[in-house]
């Protein structure tokens, strides 16, 4: 029983970037299989944003006026891109918790002892977490449609808006990955590791027009990349935008979204990969 018949393996050769993509794909596949194997987790990750839509649309909706919009359902139209933005930002949560778990269980140790490309584990993780948001966006869009939200600006613009949302999901996934590699265990990751997401999503135009915010907070909200993202989506979907205070990112929302995502990915991917090559399970 001890004799193993299969002959010694031959290593295949490929350029370095080829291996990085290959290994990233293998890890992404692994993370997406996890999604399918734990349907209850996927289900509840969909339920939460749906509940948010219903709460904001029906509880707060009547109380929050949108400057310059008289229509009764203006807030619901206004709200949906905000919910989209907030929801995709939480893609970071699964990167943080997932990596903290892998680290804690020693799986990162095993990956690191393999002759694989070092960025691949993080590439795969962030890619899978952003990909998962496609399903979330589909479910949210249907929910939005049911409460009266509409795409009013043509299919092409809508697709562009969804693309920006996924780019943003991918961006925050990298931030989340970097945070996750510092977490001592999954429990901490689930609480402390996600705290930054609340000011990020609430100090923005996701749920309320930022005209009403006092000085410093308004400046923060205006320069918050998620505000530019959500504003871009409102414009691209043809939803009410309210009246924008005078800040550069809000006058060039799409450009600022692309710029900030690029800069943040470059920064956090560098930091996360550097951290990864030193991380061990203790």
């Amino acid at each position, binding site marked *: 029983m*001890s004799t193993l018949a299969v002959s010694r*393996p031959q290593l295949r050769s490929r350029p370095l970037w080829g291996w990085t993509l290959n290994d990233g794909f293998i890890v992404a596949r692994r993370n997406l*299989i996890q999604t399918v194997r734990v349907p209850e987790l996927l289900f509840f990750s969909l339920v939460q944003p749906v509940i948010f839509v219903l709460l904001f649309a029906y509880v707060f909706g009547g109380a929050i006026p949108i400057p310059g919009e008289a229509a009764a359902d203006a807030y619901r139209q206004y709200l949906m891109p905000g919910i989209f933005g907030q929801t995709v930002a939480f893609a970071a949560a699964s990167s943080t918790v997932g990596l903290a778990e892998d680290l804690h*269980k020693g799986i990162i*140790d*095993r990956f690191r*002892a393999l002759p694989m490309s070092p960025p691949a584990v993080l590439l795969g993780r962030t890619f899978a977490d952003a990909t998962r948001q496609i399903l979330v966006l589909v479910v949210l869009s249907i929910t939005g449609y049911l409460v009266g939200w509409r795409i009013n600006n043509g299919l092409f613009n809508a697709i562009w808006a969804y693309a920006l949302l996924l780019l943003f999901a991918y961006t925050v996934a990298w931030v989340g990955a970097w945070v996750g590699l510092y977490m001592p265990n999954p429990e901490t990751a689930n609480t402390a590791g996600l705290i930054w997401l609340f000011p990020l999503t609430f100090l923005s135009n996701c749920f309320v027009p930022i005209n009403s915010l006092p000085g410093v907070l308004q400046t923060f909200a205006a320069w918050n990349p998620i505000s530019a993202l959500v504003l871009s989506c409102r414009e691209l979907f043809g939803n009410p935008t309210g009246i924008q205070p005078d800040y550069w990112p809000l006058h060039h929302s799409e450009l600022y979204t692309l710029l900030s995502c690029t800069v943040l990915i470059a920064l956090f991917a560098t930091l996360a990969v550097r951290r990864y090559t030193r991380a061990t*399970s203790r």
Partner: protein
Amino acid sequence: MSRDSAVHAEGLVKHFGDVKALDGIDLTVERGQVVGLLGPNGAGKTTTVRILSTLLKPTAGVAYVAGHDVVKQPDDVRHAIGLTGQYAAVDEYLTGRENLRMFGELYHLSPKYVKERSVELLDWFDLTDAADRPARTYSGGMRRRLDLAASLIAKPSILFLDEPTTGLDPRSRLGMWGVIQSLVDEGTTVLLTTQYLEEADQLAQDIVVIDHGHVIAHGTADVLKDQIGGDRIEIAVTDVSRLARAVELLRPIGTGEAVIDETRILMPVSGGSTVLVDAVRVLDSEGIEVSDIVLRRPTLDDVFLSLTGHVAEEEVAAPAKGRGRGRKEPKA
């Protein structure tokens, strides 16, 4: 010559902040050899393995694995080694087969090879029936077998096993020993860490005892046992309050210092079975009743005790790993 050995480390030092985890470890493992790294929790066993498997960089010192410098040529080292850590590092949601496929592909082996090798390993580790079930449904022993199978997917010539049987029940432990033995029979070089003295005795030809980041002894099990000399007499008395007096009475019979291990007296002796008679006689002269008395060859426990002055710390509570979402406790 150092580069011809499977593993060769010189003066490994590792500091974590102010903590000196390793304080100058020298270690050589020849090709095809099994070396046991023995020591209590916190002695530096895991840190040593992590440096040799390229996971940690040493603060000072050099190490070659399969002839490659672990710091300068980590990828070459990684191609040559398999690593099995203290806890089954397999993906819970993937099936056994998918786990092997993933790790095999990440070694950059051809898909055809990975597929055939997986079938072979699953069969060998008695996991064929469970191969297409997610690993989270596996028992602790099955996970450890899958974990070991994963580190064998690329047929590494050098295998690092960090406490491969910690937390396993006795039956699974015996099974694991059998597997390790057959790997060795096939010519795999193994460096294994353990806190079970019996395990090192069973598996390793050469034993390196470490404590507080230092190598404190090195040799075959027999050499280590001879080093502390002679046989051991072990005596239990009915009246525990008279243990101290019993030690005093026994002292002239022994060849070394007697120690009290909880309720038993442990003492090196020479002279075979006549010492048994002598011991019973001196104790009887003061009416100390002997409830148990044995004469035996020294074990590695005795070696450890005489080298470090303390008993090897067995883990009090087996880590709750291997079942469900076990948590790793921070190590001392």
